[in-house]
């Protein structure tokens, strides 16, 4: 059967899309492709043009996500197989799928090991982690994100390139990789060229903001050059949330493991704590980032995401706490006492609230009508805004009395960044609940706002040290 190139291209695209479903193995793809081609042939013989026949055949095959779910139900063991890298099912079958899973496992293990080893390389030059004195301490504080994020981004770039053909080409070849590399180089530069003077406030700011700034590079690798695509951005948000959860789980397991290791060796009179604290924990902590990303990618789209579930659980609880806080403040007539870290505390509160909104948005069907949970979200956002207004008033008083410092300005800036997001969210939620706007608008607002976080983080990393005299 001769086919025009366009049909072959369409089938190739369709195949690539189907392959991304982990429950569908290579041999299943082949079987479904045979079906698709037989259907197209049948329809063209009946008089349809090839492209029409392709569309009809794809439609009749059904929604691929739904089909994949059926496969997942029938072959749930495959999802786990992918994770534990078991050898392929039946001999000769599904070689492509298994070998790809194996290659991926190998790539992941190599990259995780590289990240772990990279952490120890500076020790060759006298920068000893934990025991190397202040110089080594500041070195690691500034650079720790650079030890792991490049490897994480490398994994994502590799995966997009190997699995989704043409993904980079669509945006002009590998030029899509240039911004990622440039961001890492910039991170390396700004983390290390500035001097550090006591009391090292700008150093602490760099240490906390550089990881956020570099997360942008990871994001660019994740979206595979399609950073303008709002849906891809939302996918990256989901990926970040799931990675955070997986990382926490791996960390818990790691703690149990190390506790047992230390205890067991103690029982035979050996002290291995130096090994654990200098090698196992720090290296494991970095390697686990890459491993966690791999696990998130492997179970993607098959199992219900965790972050939205936690959101559902904690949205009512946080709302309750905020309301209780406001109620108590009104009852006892006490203002917010301005302690040193109070602004940072309220920043973190806003981060949590933005996170709750973001992950509720990420998992919601935009077509669904307004419900009670949406009203609860709006209530949460509104109470957070009121609480934050009190905090800001208190801080404004403090700043006018004691002047600006790097920490205060950074915390204030973050507060504004998050506040703007929440005001926008509250406005769009209210419109949506009153039937004046769509939920998609809220989703767009959230994805469109993502660059603001990165811009702010880079601004702090690049401009704050010189602005505040490197102190």
């Amino acid at each position, binding site marked *: 059967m001769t086919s025009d190139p366009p049909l072959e291209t369409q089938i190739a695209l369709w195949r690539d899309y189907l392959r991304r479903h982990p429950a569908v193995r290579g041999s*299943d793809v082949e079987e*479904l492709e045979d079906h698709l081609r037989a259907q197209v042939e*049948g329809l063209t013989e009946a008089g349809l043009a090839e492209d029409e026949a392709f569309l009809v055949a794809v439609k009749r095959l059904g929604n691929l996500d739904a*089909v994949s779910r059926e*496969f997942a139900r029938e072959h749930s063991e495959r999802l786990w197989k992918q994770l534990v890298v078991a050898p392929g099912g039946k001999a000769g079958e599904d070689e492509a799928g298994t070998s790809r899973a194996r290659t991926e496992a190998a790539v992941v293990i190599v990259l995780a090991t590289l990240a772990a080893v990279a952490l120890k390389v500076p020790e060759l030059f006298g920068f000893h982690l934990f025991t190397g004195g202040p110089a080594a301490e500041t070195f690691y504080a500034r650079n720790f994100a650079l030890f792991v994020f490049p490897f994480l981004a490398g994994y994502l770039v590799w995966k997009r390139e190997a699995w989704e053909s043409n993904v980079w080409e669509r945006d002009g070849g590998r030029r899509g990789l240039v911004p990622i590399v440039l961001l890492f180089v910039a991170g390396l530069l700004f983390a290390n060229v500035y001097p550090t003077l006591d009391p090292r406030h700008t150093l602490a700011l760099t240490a906390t903001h550089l990881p956020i700034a570099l997360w942008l590079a990871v994001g660019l690798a994740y979206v595979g050059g399609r950073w303008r695509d709002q849906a891809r951005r939302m996918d990256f948000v989901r990926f970040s949330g799931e990675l955070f959860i997986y990382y926490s789980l791996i960390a818990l397991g790691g703690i149990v493991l190390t506790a047992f290791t230390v205890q067991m060796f103690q029982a035979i009179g050996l002290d291995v704590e130096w090994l654990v604290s200098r090698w196992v924990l720090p290296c494991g902590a970095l390697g686990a980032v890459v491993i966690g990303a791999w696990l998130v990618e492997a179970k993607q789209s098959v199992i219900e995401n965790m972050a939205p579930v936690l959101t559902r659980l904690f949205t009512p609880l946080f709302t309750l706490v905020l309301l209780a806080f406001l109620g108590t403040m009104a009852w006892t007539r006490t203002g917010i006492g301005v302690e040193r870290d109070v602004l940072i505390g309220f920043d973190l509160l806003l981060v949590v609230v933005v996170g709750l909104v973001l992950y509720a948005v990420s998992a919601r069907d935009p077509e669904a009508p307004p419900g009670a949970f949406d009203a609860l979200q709006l209530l949460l956002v509104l109470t957070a805004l009121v609480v934050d207004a009190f905090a800001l008033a208190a801080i404004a008083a403090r700043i006018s009395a004691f002047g600006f410092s790097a920490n205060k300005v950074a915390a204030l800036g973050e507060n504004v960044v998050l506040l703007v997001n929440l005001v926008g969210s509250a406005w769009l939620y209210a419109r949506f609940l009153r039937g004046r706007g769509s939920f998609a608008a809220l989703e767009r607002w959230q994805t469109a706002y993502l660059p603001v976080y990165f811009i702010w983080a880079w601004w702090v990393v690049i401009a704050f040290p010189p602005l505040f005299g490197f102190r």
Partner: protein
Amino acid sequence: MDIGKDLVAASATPLVLAILAEGDSYGYAILKRVGELSDGELTWTDGMLYPVLHRLERFGYVEARWGKSETGRRRRYYRLTQEGRAQLEEQRQQWQVVDATLRGIWKDTLERSSERLRPAPGLRAVWRTT
């Protein structure tokens, strides 16, 4: 006529087994046969057939092997096993019981309801009046 999802799902196993009892076949041909047998009334989402076939394979009712199509593409053929034949017989008996029961009650309702109502294809009308 739109046949309910549950009914389609329930009838899938005996139908696929019965078609394979006619001879070895593959996914696309099985679906075509379903269309012929039901005059196009029974439609499946094509993709959903394959998980069903794989489940039947897991139960040991069918065997699969890779062969070649007329045009030389790799194609997966399915064959009914001995166990599959036994299963088909069992399902046939079960469906006959269901069928006989329904026929019995529909006959009664038809006799009791107005004479203008016609049997079989107009069953919906029966439901509406009862």
